[in-house]
């Protein structure tokens, strides 16, 4: 039984399940059934992917006689696909598990259930496709299903807008990819990936292909400035779907870019990496800055996805650079860093979205300004959410740190690059990366602190209660994985070796052999990290300290009202809110990033007016790139529309003019 057939079978089963779901949605327990089935299927697919990845099997191919005639539907499972299948289905399985419990709170079940398995199938098929047609069909199918899920709560204000922007950008991206494939396929129409690998593309055309791939995949992954749909669409969907879209679907986009840039397209040129690096760096910083300015928890998470995509693309860009200058082992390091971060991000971003969903169901609120103090009402959720926050803030000993650390190591090797542009660019990108990491920490101090800590700001937050056990199970599983991937990164790095080997023709030194299970990307003398020991140190020293103090000194505790410098104020309104927390950072970065303006209207003493603070921020990307297009289209269409209200005589004159014009052409014809 070969893995590919198994995977395809699983996907077919998922599609069948989505048909079943149309009926099941009416049943009382229908939701639980569908999600349980999806969980089972995804676990199966996960097993298949892992088996191929860890078993180091040779690539498997399979062609079905459907799809585009005279080419058929080709599927292929190699290390890269297998890795992403594992990532996708791990996230999918967790989301399904989570949804078994979470789904109960869904009101429009018939609008969610049928599309959920279809969405999963779409993502899986995209990863397995081995010709342009199949790939695009699966890709668009994925977009379509997720669009339907975004539109599930179509009565909510803004949902329609979100869905519209989303599907439009998705289609735009698909067209870009289509053009890229068209260039790769050439006029003869060799649409299979095998043929594309074999064929050679002219240098200029190759550059164009890369740009198109960057646009196509970037618009799905959320690269600035193509990210606008993401913070609208991800929060609009039900939380388990948001987790999938943010944590997993963006990875499918990353896969698309890797597939085209590293596999289908021949040897890279150095300036490609410049594009990827610059975009990645900007995306990372802008994404986290956007995130810091949000007060809607799910929007914050969605924007933060943009940042992580930036980090991933930095890794990929470095890999391109090193590959261009033929340094396979270093390229392998960079690529591994990028892919590992993709995996890590899928873990903690899903986890965080699960937590956000739990909070939303418990309180009915997504606005952090109306939450607070939840750590007392939902301690377990708070705990796992905290782990997610630590991991995503790239703090040891969790997994987020490992991949960013690897990326830094790759950047530190950039002086070996002969190209000048890259010499200058890379440290700059490194600085941007460091900046985004620091800001991310601030962002998640805010996210966790405002939502779970402090005193409840609304009755809703006060009445919150712990979420159901399925959701908790999913969250705990991912929290555990975050820790494992943080303390034993060697396993995951080695698992990625074959994929890197296929793509850049090199690999990192095997990590398993190294003593004390630490990792050393190049050589131990140069740099090494051991999450396990760090964890042990922290735990032991903390325990030591606690034991020592409790034994030798007092362990008495007295509860008392907060001191607050002697002016305690009972009203929870005096706490810092999401916006006030971000205010200093807004003052530092907002001025140029968002044209942030703060107007303070402080009435004179004795004046009874309330004091007013107005903060205006503009989304420059939207204002400068998208609004003009919208306006232009509207304008032009209005002008052209006048043509629809002419008299018959005027229409005749148009026909007449056309005739005369053509006759003139004939008369002037050489």
């Amino acid at each position, binding site marked *: 039984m070969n893995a590919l057939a198994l995977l395809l079978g699983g996907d077919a089963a998922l599609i069948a399940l989505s048909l079943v779901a149309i009926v099941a949605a009416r049943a009382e327990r229908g939701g639980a059934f569908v999600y349980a089935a999806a969980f089972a299927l995804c676990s199966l697919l996960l097993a298949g992917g892992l088996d191929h990845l860890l078993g180091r099997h040779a690539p498997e191919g399979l062609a079905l006689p459907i799809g585009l005639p005279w080419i058929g539907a080709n599927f292929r499972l190699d290390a890269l696909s297998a890795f992403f299948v594992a990532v996708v289905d791990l996230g999918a399985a967790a989301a399904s598990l989570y949804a078994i419990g979470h789904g109960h709170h869904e009101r429009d079940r018939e609008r969610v259930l049928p599309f959920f398995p279809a969405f999963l199938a779409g993502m899986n098929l995209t990863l397995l496709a081995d010709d342009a047609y199949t790939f695009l*069909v699966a890709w*668009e199918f994925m977009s379509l299903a997720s669009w339907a899920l975004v539109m599930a709560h179509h009565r909510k204000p803004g*949902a329609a807008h979100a869905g519209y922007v989303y599907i439009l950008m998705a289609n735009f991206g698909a067209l870009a990819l289509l*053009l890229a494939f*068209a260039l790769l396929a050439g006029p003869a129409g060799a649409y299979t990936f095998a043929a594309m690998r074999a064929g050679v593309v002219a240098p200029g055309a190759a550059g164009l292909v890369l740009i198109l791939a960057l646009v196509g995949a970037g618009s799905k992954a959320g690269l600035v400035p193509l990210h606008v749909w993401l913070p609208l669409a991800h929060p609009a969907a039900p939380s388990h779907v948001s987790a999938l879209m943010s944590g997993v679907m963006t990875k499918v986009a990353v896969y698309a870019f890797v597939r085209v840039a590293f596999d289908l397209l021949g040897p890279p040129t150095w300036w490609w990496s410049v594009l990827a690096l610059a975009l990645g760096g900007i995306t990372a910083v802008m994404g986290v800055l956007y995130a810091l300015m949000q007060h809607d928890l799910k929007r914050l998470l969605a924007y933060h996805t943009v940042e992580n995509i930036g980090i991933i693309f930095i890794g990929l860009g470095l890999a391109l650079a090193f590959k261009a200058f033929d340094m396979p082992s270093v390229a392998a390091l960079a690529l591994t860093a990028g892919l590992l971060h993709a995996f890590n991000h899928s873990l903690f971003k899903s986890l965080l979205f699960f937590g956000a969903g739990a909070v939303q169901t418990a309180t009915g609120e997504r606005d952090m300004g109306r939450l607070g103090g939840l750590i007392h009402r939902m301690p377990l959720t708070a705990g796992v959410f905290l782990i997610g926050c630590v991991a995503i803030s790239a703090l040891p000993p969790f997994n987020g740190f490992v991949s960013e650390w690897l990326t830094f190591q790759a950047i530190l090797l950039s002086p070996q690059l002969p190209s000048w542009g890259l010499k200058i660019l890379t440290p700059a990108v490194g600085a941007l990366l460091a900046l985004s990491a620091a800001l991310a920490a601030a962002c998640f101090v805010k996210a966790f602190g405002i939502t779970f800590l402090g005193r409840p700001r609304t009755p809703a937050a006060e009445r919150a209660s712990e979420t159901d056990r399925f959701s908790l199970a999913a969250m705990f599983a991912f929290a555990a994985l975050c820790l494992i991937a943080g303390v034993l990164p060697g396993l995951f790095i080695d698992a990625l070796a074959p994929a890197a080997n296929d793509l850049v023709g090199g690999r990192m030194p095997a990590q398993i052999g190294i003593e004390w299970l630490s990792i050393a990307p190049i050589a131990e003398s140069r740099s090494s990290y051991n999450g396990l020991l760090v964890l042990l140190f922290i735990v032991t020293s903390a325990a030591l300290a606690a034991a020592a103090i409790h034994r030798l000194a007092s362990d008495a505790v007295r509860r008392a009202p907060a001191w607050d410098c002697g002016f305690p104020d009972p009203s929870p309104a005096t706490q810092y809110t999401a916006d006030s927390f971000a205010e200093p950072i807004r003052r530092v970065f907002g001025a140029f990033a968002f044209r942030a303006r703060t107007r303070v209207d402080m009435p004179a003493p004795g004046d009874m007016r309330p004091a007013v603070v107005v903060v205006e921020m503009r989304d420059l990307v939207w204002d400068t790139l998208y609004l003009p297009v919208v306006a232009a289209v509207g304008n032009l269409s209005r002008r052209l529309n006048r043509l629809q209200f002419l008299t018959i005589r005027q229409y005749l004159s148009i026909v007449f003019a056309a005739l005369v014009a053509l006759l003139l052409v004939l008369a002037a014809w050489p």
Partner: protein
Amino acid sequence: MTAPPFDGVTAILVLPAATAAVLAFLPAYRVSAAVNVVSSLATFALAASFFLFKPASGLYFLVDDLNIVFVVLNAFVAFTASVFSASYIAHELATGRLTPTHLRFYHAMYQALLFAMNLALVANNIGLMWVAIEMATLTTVAMVGVYRTPEAIEAAWKYFILGSVGIALALFGTILVYMAARPVLGEGLDGMVWTKLMARVSEFEPALLNLAFVFLMLGYGTKVGLAPLHAWLPDAHAEGPTPISAVLSGLLLNVALYAVLRFKLLLDANAQAIAPGPLMATLGVVSLIFAAFMLYQRRDIKRLFAFSSIEHMGVIVFAFGIGGPLANFAGLLHMTMHSLTKSAIFFTVGHIAQAKGTQSIADIRGLTVSHPALGWSLVLGVFAIAGLPPMGVFTSEFLIISSTFAREPRLAVLLAFGLILAFGALVLRLQGMAFGEPSPGDRRSTASSLPIAAHLGLVLAAGLYLPPPLVAWFQHVAAMLR
């Protein structure tokens, strides 16, 4: 001149004509509707039989691989449309928009139209083809005006005037072709027989051919609805009965397109004449982008989809203009898919208009809530026509864009631009109609949903799997279109 052998060709002509004559005197509208359906089914069966044993071609009639595709497609859509209309008109009577007298006329005209279109498709004589297309135009004019409302009359009048001028131009083109042929083929009928023309076109006077093609392109292009000759199309679609809108978009445009294709072949075969491709490609792109922009301003649901028909006609003409095996294949496929999808959409729109009692987009909201089946089939139809997989239209657009981009990058970019523009407009309107709080008006529609299901099913199937015989057939035709 030898009389044509009595065979399938004569049958598909005689049957509708006879039925039309009968229906003209049948008072009971239910009976006539039934007769209409049966006769259309029979016509379809006959047309399908062409695949098995191809009728011989004579001086007057010609059946080759190219027009079989058109004939069969036409017959099929005409059949489903007749099924739809049979269940549709009852409601029209109920609301008093039509009287039994009108219906008698309507059914007679329906068959007459069928006859005219079949004639145009199988005619081997360019003069005969011209007569047939004029007849088809006149019958549709009559049907567009059948509601007798000022709007309907105006639409019909517009259609009539523009159509007649188009007809006149086409005739002039036809005469020119004859003039070009006469020195070579001698006087008399031969100068108009397409097969004979084809045989010796290379010796024709190129300048005359060029001139002829200009007139033919404009004349028949008016019928195809290419911008800027499209003015009649939206109103004609919007004001006529919905089955007729479906027939117009799904069939009549194809017939005119067929005529254009025939003459394109003629010109391609003459080395000195200007290549018709660029002209067609240009007109195609212009229509596509123009229609895409117009879509944003539409307030009437039927006009919306009428403009989308213009857009797709543009795509098809563009594909044929670009030429080459891939593009031609894609063009044929796109034409087929468009006929099926667009007629399905118009069926759906008919239901919606009946259920909501309005055609104004602004007053149609939340269909997926108030009429789930209807709403979702609208969503499906619009996504199909907007070229999203796994629908057949995506296949053809995929082929068109990719094959063009490898050869004419700029054109392909224009094409992609137009497509995404149109996509944006369609989805914008779709979301408004299909989602959100439902608008008042939840009457159930009487009409049957069978045709919709059939068409969308076919389109979906085509997107996933094209049967090899069909592919081979299309490839053969594509090669023939060069």
